């Protein structure tokens, strides 16, 4: 029987024996939006590649309409790349069934609107949904995991509050807690600092830094906050108008001419004592 030829798995199913410490690998992925297939695309994301390890924070940086959100959708598996592949632990993210994908990738989106109010704990428990099939009742394990998730983001005291009665910063933490309850390998955050004040922004990224280290998450943050990316990211993917201009650690990507050209603003870059770049913007006058 062993002589029977084994049908090879379709390439999308086959775990790739990539070097063991790479978790996310984006390989020449591209995408194009068009309103009509026969017309020229309205927006193109040119082929780009990068790799991320467990415990690493990657910042996807760029001005508005640069393709940040498209890249995030490709990585989350919501969109299928036009060309190229995106692997998570060797599996093509777009081909994973929804439930499996949700066990491995958690997405923190800009504030979600709720149709009917729910309690914070109900919201966090939703993160356990991918771990049951069909109709399910939460187990004690689910409750423990959700409670831990709330503790990890320092929001345990909010557990019994209503989602629509807490502040923006508190809500952002709770949304992060729900993502943690999914126990993902990959944590994606879409502009998580958008509605937060400075204190809450630093707080959130501090949390992410700690969580990435403790739980070995690979974290991807889409942002246009230069200094937060410079301070907290291990790698920066710099995008402009659908083109990937540079990938690398902040100290190499944060070049004055490059950033000035991308963000269309005069600025200066200096290195802090910790080896992190700091950007100062000047007014145009």
């Amino acid at each position, binding site marked *: 029987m062993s002589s029977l030829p084994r049908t090879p798995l379709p390439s999308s199913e086959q775990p790739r024996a990539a070097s063991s410490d790479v978790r996310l690998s984006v390989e020449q992925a591209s995408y194009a939006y068009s309103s009509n297939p026969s017309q020229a695309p309205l927006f193109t994301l040119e082929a780009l590649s990068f790799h991320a390890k467990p415990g690493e924070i990657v910042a996807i940086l760029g001005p508005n309409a640069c393709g940040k959100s498209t890249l995030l959708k490709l990585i989350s598996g919501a969109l299928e790349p036009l060309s190229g592949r995106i692997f998570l632990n060797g599996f093509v993210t777009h081909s994973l069934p929804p439930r499996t994908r949700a066990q491995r990738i958690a997405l923190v*989106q800009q504030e979600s609107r709720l149709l009917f109010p729910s309690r914070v704990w109900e919201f966090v428990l939703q993160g356990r*949904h991918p771990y*049951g099939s069909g109709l399910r009742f939460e187990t004690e394990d689910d409750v423990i995991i959700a409670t831990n998730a709330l503790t990890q983001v320092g929001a345990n005291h909010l557990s019994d509050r209503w989602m629509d009665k807490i502040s923006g910063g508190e809500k952002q933490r709770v949304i992060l807690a729900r993502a943690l309850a999914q126990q993902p390998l990959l944590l994606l955050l879409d502009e998580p600092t958008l509605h937060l004040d400075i204190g809450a922004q630093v707080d959130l990224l501090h949390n992410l830094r700690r969580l990435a280290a403790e739980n070995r998450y690979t974290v991807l943050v889409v942002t246009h906050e230069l200094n937060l990316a410079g301070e907290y990211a291990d790698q920066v993917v710099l995008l402009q108008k659908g083109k990937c201009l540079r990938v690398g650690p902040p100290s190499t990507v944060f070049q004055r001419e490059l950033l000035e050209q991308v963000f269309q603003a005069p600025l200066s870059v200096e290195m802090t004592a910790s080896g992190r770049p700091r950007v100062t913007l000047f007014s145009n006058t």
Partner: protein
Amino acid sequence: MRPLTLGRLLFRCGILAVILFVVVVIALKMGAVQVSLYGLGRDLIRVLLGQSSAISTDYGMIVIDIRLPRILLGIVVGASLSVAGASFQALLRNPLADPYVLGVSSGAAVGAIVALIIESHLALSPELAGLITPFGAFLGAALTIAAVYFLGRRDGQIDSSTLLLGGIITASFLSAIIMFLMNTLSGSNLRGTVFWLMGDLSTPQPRSLLFLLSFGFLVAAGAIYTTASDLNLLLAGEKEAMHLGVDVRRVRIVVYLAASILTGLAVSASGTIGYVGLLVPHIMRLIFGADHRMLLPASALGGAIAIVVADTLARTVVAPSEVSVGAVTAIAGAPLFIYLLRRRMT
């Protein structure tokens, strides 16, 4: 954290079931013919034991043969409409959605009338003919909800107000079609159809239809219930639900088809009864919260209670004549709807 457990779910449903039972007993007692509680209990037990022939009095026969089937029909219709309403509200992310408001009931009515007209031209066996109306109503409901769904979509997202407006326009368009079709009906047929359209449980239905309705309800509501956890996540939006592991496309198809079956069956048996599918899920949500694992069975029981109460009023307030149950639900429902709408806005 106190997540819903099966025990708590069953306990709450048990309370609602007890209320339903009490309402049914009262409904059986009320009417032109008075029966004692003792006589009622004795006769019911005899029916359950299969000894209907032992029921002595004509009064007992009235209760068992006329009031009881009507109440059972009301229970299935009310449960179907409420579950359909709760499902549409979750799927369309719109708390004001229900089969009546969205025009789905009207679509089912058009389907049923068209089926009636076609049927009269075909020489079918009575069993087959009896199935054609519910099937026509289901098709009408399914086509209407598909049309309303596409009318309500803008840039790939469902827009609440566009959806409701689309539903209202569809409903009035379909009402015009119904008027048009009614001109083709004659004499006694016409009077029956008019009464049926207003929402009516008084017409005796063949026993087979009651079985079809109950069976259809169990299958369709059961199918919707398997997606209860998914519906909870869909409240936050389709994209968000997808990222939490919901197979949105599958859930959407299952719930649309099942809710159309529920609406079609209810309308083919009792016409367009309004407001039950809208208000009962609303009230249940106020009491038990928005968790569909609790909300769906609570709505089914609550809808049954609401229809049995409304129908008992319909046949007793102007006795010896009666009004249509649809008129009762509308008279009670419309002001309640306005009240809930204003409350939401403040």
